[in-house]
């Protein structure tokens, strides 16, 4: 059985206690997108400012549990300054890390070490969130900010397309 130390790694608790990039950004130029976790009622607000195809600034506000807050905090640290293609790639890798593969769930419900789906080295601190997979109900907490980020990127793309035409 997975222990709590798999979930609450020290890095996660650190981001929870002192979250990075909390706050708001003026809109425009930033876009503002809200994300909800219907399970626990958590809400986060993401402000994303993209200029010349890269993330100039990003901020998070709202409330949530330690997992959603630290995941959001690590996410902002990971994407700041990156270009959009890189950010999209990171989202894909993160989501695949957060996918439970049925083969990894033992029939008796035991939660096994998930196979390494992505190279944790390329992930830096985010790899600490890998343990969340062993607590399936908490996966939604970890992915909340990432899904909100996808929404923000999509919104920016739609805007760009509309202003091009």
């Amino acid at each position: 059985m997975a222990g709590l130390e798999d979930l609450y790694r020290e890095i996660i608790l650190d981001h929870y206690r002192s979250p990075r990039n909390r706050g708001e950004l003026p809109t425009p130029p930033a876009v503002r997108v809200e994300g909800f976790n219907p399970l626990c009622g958590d809400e986060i607000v993401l402000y994303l400012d993209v200029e010349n195809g890269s993330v100039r600034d990003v901020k998070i506000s709202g409330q949530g549990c330690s997992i959603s807050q630290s995941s959001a905090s690590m996410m902002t640290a990971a994407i700041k300054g990156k270009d959009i293609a890189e950010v999209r790639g990171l989202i894909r890798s993160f989501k695949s890390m957060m996918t439970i593969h049925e083969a990894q769930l033992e029939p008796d419900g035991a939660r096994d070490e998930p196979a390494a789906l992505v190279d944790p080295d390329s992930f830096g601190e985010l790899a600490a969130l890998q343990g969340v997979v062993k607590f399936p109900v908490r996966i939604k907490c970890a992915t909340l900010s990432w899904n909100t980020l996808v929404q923000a990127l999509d919104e920016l793309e739609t805007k760009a397309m509309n202003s091009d035409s």
Partner: protein
Amino acid sequence: MATVASPAFDVETIKSDFPLLDRVQAGRKIVFLDSAASSQRPRSVLNAMDDYYQTTHANVHRGVYAIAEEATRRYEEARLLAGRLINAPDPAREIIFTKNVTEAYNLVAYSWGRKNLHDGDVIVLTETEHHANLVPWLMLQEERKITIRYIAMDDDYRLDLSDIEAVVDGAKLVSVTAASNVLGTITDLEPITRAAHRAGALVMADGAQLVPHRRVDVQALDVDLLGYTGHKLMGPTGIGVLWARAEILEEMPPFLGGGEMISDVRLDGFSTTDIPWKFEAGTPPIAEAVGLGAAITYLESIGIDNIAAHEQSLTNYAIRSLQERFDEIEIFGPGADAERRGGVISFRFGDIHPHDVAQVLDEHAVCVRAGHHCAKPLMRRLGVNATTRASLYLYNDEHDIDALVAGLEGVRKMFS
């Protein structure tokens, strides 16, 4: 450490009636403090359902052979038990089995609501309702221009009845929780029914959190409709109960259509059968009714007043223990020794998120609920997204509360 209750009431013996409570998790016996979400069930309920399937199962109200008649008899006996539990005047006709109490309220909103509520009509709910007694009415409001007024919660976590006369004035229905699944508050129904009836409104009470824990007498309470749900009363999932006075049910059009609920069907129409079957289309939850009957029998063998007394003293013990030990705790509900207070204890634990609280408690084999408890408007009123909730039942004792306190020490350590 002995729990104060009547001598006939022995928690150790009661605990041993519940097989699930023997479960060991990470070397510890489970501490189950989530009965407000769903209770556990005693062996006698499991045996009754097993026995039913092994010896008696056949569809009800259909076959003429012996086991079909016996199945029908067991199903209808459960109806009588479900009605007598709440002192329904005419249990054989006034008790409708549904799949849960949510379906019961949908039935009322759909059937009674569509017949009786038209543009401009008013109903009254409270801001403390479970979504089950809220969303069906909001759905009706999407279809018709009905007005929904809400009785507010006051700062003592009770319904503010100071201007109840005005709130219910002109209403056709007042539908209120009889006991809150978040606050533990037990509603003082008397002023509500008095004002509502004077205004000509019917009163429906959501008994989901009251019937399993306190003596409920629909005649003494003077309510017109009341619902409760089997799985919170030591019965199985898949069965709920709607009680309403026969004259109300008789006037209501059917809810679901199909077999069982008709007296005649032609290709150009149908006529419905008598109550209660008019509202029980299709094959009903027979084994579940048998299980619910066994649960009621078990509950009565222990005695509802004994259960209430035990829960009351344990609730006081829990609130005191939590408040003495933790400065950072804020309990959303009436305090220790408050009157009309059930064993549901929702709280904020410093600024630690309920999910994190519940996760660490799980490591201590303590099962509590974290979330909005299907009462999002109430969460907004309390100014939180979610709470942690510990809820008590007859099989809990002071050791369980001590385990909760020890678990919370662990939570504090982890996140400080």
